[in-house]
C-alpha cells in the first residue's frame, strides 16, 4: 500500500468480559497506514470500530484484554508501559472524540486546556505557548482567537468546540490522528467544514488519520482506504473507490444499497433483513450468515477469514459478489 507504513495493526483482538462471559468486541483487525494517509473504519453501532481505535492507543486495556500487535514507527504499543505510552499519546498520536460537549473540561478556559497540552509535550516557554495556542485556534478557523483564549467551553457552539478539540489534538504536531466520529454530533454544513479542516491539516502536516464513522458518505468524501466492520471483524477492506463502487462482501453491498441515493422516490428501499447479532451469542460460522442472501451451508459452520481478492483488496466471504468489469480492468 505505502512504502513505509507508520502504523501497522496486526491481528488486533479486544475482549471484554461480563458476568464471566467473554465478549469478543474486536477480532483479528489488521491494517497499515502511511504518512498523510486517511484510513476509514466504518460499520454499524456495536461493530467494534471505536474499540479498535481505543485499543490502538492503549485505552481499551484498562477495561478489556487486548492482544495482537500495534506497531507505531517500529515500536510495539501493546506491550508498552503506561508511562511510555503517555509520552506518545498527545505528542505523536492524538485522538479526538465524538462528543465535543463532554470531552472538554467545563471548568477550565479553552486557553488553559490548549496550553496544558503544550506544556506536557513541548519545551516551549510560557509566552511561546500562548502564541502557539493562538496560532492553533487561528489555524482551525476560530475568529478572534486571542480574545477567545480566556473563554470557557460553554461559550462556544458545538462546531467551535469540535474545532477547539482539534486544535488541542494537533497542538503538539502529532504524526497520527485518531478521530472517533468527529462530526456525528454536528450539522451537515458544519460537518463539511470540520472534515475539510481535518483533511487540509493532514495534508499540510503529512499526518496519518484513522477516521471512525458510520456514515458512508463521510467515508467516500474523506478516506483513501476503508475497512468495513461487522460484529467485531473486518469483512472487507481496500481502496475506498473500489470498496464503495464495487463491493464484494454482501454486507458492504447491503449497506450501500440501504442509503437512499439514486433510487426512485417513495419506493421501497433495500434493507438488510434482520438485525446485527449480539456479541453474547455470535453464530458459529460467519456472523453475517443469518442475514445474508448468498449464504451457503459452509457459511453456517465455518468462519471465513480475510483473503486477498485483488491487489490491496481483501474480503472475508466464501461466496463474494462477482467482480464487475470495472473491477477487473
Amino acid at each position, binding site marked *: 500500500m505505502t512504502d513505509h507504513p507508520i502504523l501497522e495493526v496486526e491481528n488486533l483482538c479486544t475482549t471484554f468480559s461480563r458476568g464471566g462471559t467473554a465478549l469478543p468486541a474486536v477480532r483479528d483487525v489488521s491494517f497499515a497506514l502511511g504518512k498523510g494517509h486517511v484510513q476509514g473504519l466504518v460499520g454499524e453501532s456495536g461493530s467494534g470500530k471505536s474499540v479498535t481505535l481505543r485499543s490502538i492507543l492503549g485505552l481499551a486495556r484498562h477495561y478489556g484484554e487486548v492482544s495482537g500487535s500495534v506497531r507505531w514507527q517500529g515500536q510495539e504499543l501493546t506491550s508498552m508501559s503506561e508511562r511510555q505510552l503517555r509520552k506518545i499519546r498527545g505528542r505523536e498520536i492524538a485522538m479526538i472524540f465524538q462528543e465535543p460537549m463532554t470531552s472538554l473540561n467545563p471548568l477550565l478556559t479553552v486557553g488553559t486546556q490548549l496550553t496544558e497540552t503544550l506544556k506536557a509535550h513541548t519545551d516551549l516557554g510560557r509566552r511561546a505557548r500562548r502564541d502557539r495556542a493562538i496560532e492553533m485556534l487561528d489555524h482551525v478557523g476560530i475568529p478572534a482567537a486571542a480574545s477567545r483564549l480566556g473563554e470557557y467551553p460553554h461559550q462556544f457552539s458545538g462546531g467551535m468546540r469540535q474545532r477547539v478539540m482539534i486544535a488541542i489534538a494537533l497542538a503538539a504536531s502529532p504524526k497520527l490522528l485518531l478521530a472517533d466520529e468527529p462530526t456525528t454530533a454536528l450539522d451537515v*454544513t458544519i460537518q463539511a467544514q470540520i472534515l475539510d479542516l481535518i483533511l487540509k491539516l493532514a495534508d499540510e502536516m503529512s499526518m496519518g488519520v484513522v477516521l471512525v464513522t458510520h456514515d*458512508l458518505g463521510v467515508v467516500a468524501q474523506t478516506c483513501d482506504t476503508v475497512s468495513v466492520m461487522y460484529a467485531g471483524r473486518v469483512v472487507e477492506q481496500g481502496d475506498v473507490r473500489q470498496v464503495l463502487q464495487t463491493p464484494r462482501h454482501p454486507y458492504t453491498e447491503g449497506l450501500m444499497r440501504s442509503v437512499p441515493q439514486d433510487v426512485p422516490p417513495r419506493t421501497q428501499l433495500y434493507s438488510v433483513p434482520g*438485525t446485527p447479532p449480539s456479541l453474547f451469542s455470535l453464530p458459529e460460522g460467519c456472523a453475517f450468515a443469518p442475514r445474508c442472501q448468498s449464504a451457503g451451508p459452509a457459511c453456517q459452520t465455518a468462519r471465513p477469514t480475510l483473503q486477498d481478492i485483488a491487489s490491496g483488496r481483501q474480503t472475508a466471504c466464501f461466496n463474494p459478489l462477482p467482480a464487475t468489469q470495472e473491477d477487473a480492468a
Partner: protein
Amino acid sequence: MTQTVMKIDDLHLSFPVSRSLLDVVQRKPGKSVNALNGVSLELKQGETLGVVGESGCGKSTLARCIVRLYAPTSGQIHFEDENIFGAAARKDRSYNRRVQMMFQDPYSSLNPRMSTGDILAEALRVHQMRPENEIAGRVEELLELVRLPQDAAEKLPHEFSGGQRQRIAIARALAVEPEVLIADELVSALDVSVQAQVVNLLLELQERLKLTILFVAHDLRLVRHVSNRVAVIYLGRIVEIGDSETLFSAPSHPYSRALLSAAPSLDPDDKGVAIQLEGELPSPLNVPSGCPFHVRCRHVTAQCRTVVPALRALEGRGEVACHHAEEINQHA
C-alpha cells in the same frame, strides 16, 4: 391530494430567557429565544411534507406546536377549518387522537416499566377506541401491522433493539387511527440498514391507511426519498418550500443550495464539490436583521441587510424567500 387538512398561518413562538441580575438592575428588557418567526404551511391530504434544517432552526418546535405541546406566541393552526388553539378545540380531545406524534429517541419515549402490550392498550383505552374485551385482539393486530412478533406484547421496551422500539412507537401512534402523523427525526437514531426497514414500513403504512405525514429530519437523502414536498427552515422561517424532486435537483435559495451540497456524496469521485458555508447558524437569541441568512450568504446586498424577504412563488420552482433568487439562479 389536493384537499388541505392543516393550515398553519404565520406561527410565531418565543421562549423567554431568565433575566440576569445585571439586566434587572440595568432595567434591560428580558431576552427571548425566537424559535419560530412566522411559519406558514399547508398540509395536504395524503402527502408527506419533509421539513429540513440545521439543529436549532425550529423544526422540532414546529412539530411540537402542531401537536399542541407548545402554544404559539401568535399565529394560528387550523385543522379542518377549526383553530386548534381555540377554546372549543381545547376541550375536544379528538384532535389529540387524529394527529399523532412520534419522537426521535426510541430509548426515552417508551415507558420502561410497561410491557409493549400495556403501552398499546393504554392508548386504546384513553381514547376509547375499542371496548375492553376487544383490546387484546387489537393489540395483536397492531403488532402484526408493524411486523413485530406476537410474543412482543409481553416484553418490556429494554428487550427490543432501537429499530423494534421505533416500530412500537409507530404502532402506538397508529393504535388510535390517526389521520396525520408527525414524525420528529423518527429514524435518526438508527443504523442505516435498520433505518431502511423502518422507512419502508412507514411508506407502506401511509399507502395503506391514507396517512398524511409531516416528516422532520436532518438527513437530506432520507427526506428526499420519503417526501412529496419539502420545506427548508432557517432560523424559524421557511426559506424555500416546494416539490421534493424540483427542490433537491434545483434548489433556488442560496441556503438550500449550500445545505444540499454539504451532504456528503457516496461517490468518492465527487470530492470537493460542496459549497462551503461560512460561519455557523446565528443564535436564535439574536436573529440578524433583514434576511436571517445574510451573514452567511455570498450574494448579500444592502437590501438583504434591512428588508426581510417574503416567501414568493418562482416560475418552475417552488416558493422562495430571497430577494435575488432570479439572478442567483441565472448564474448557476
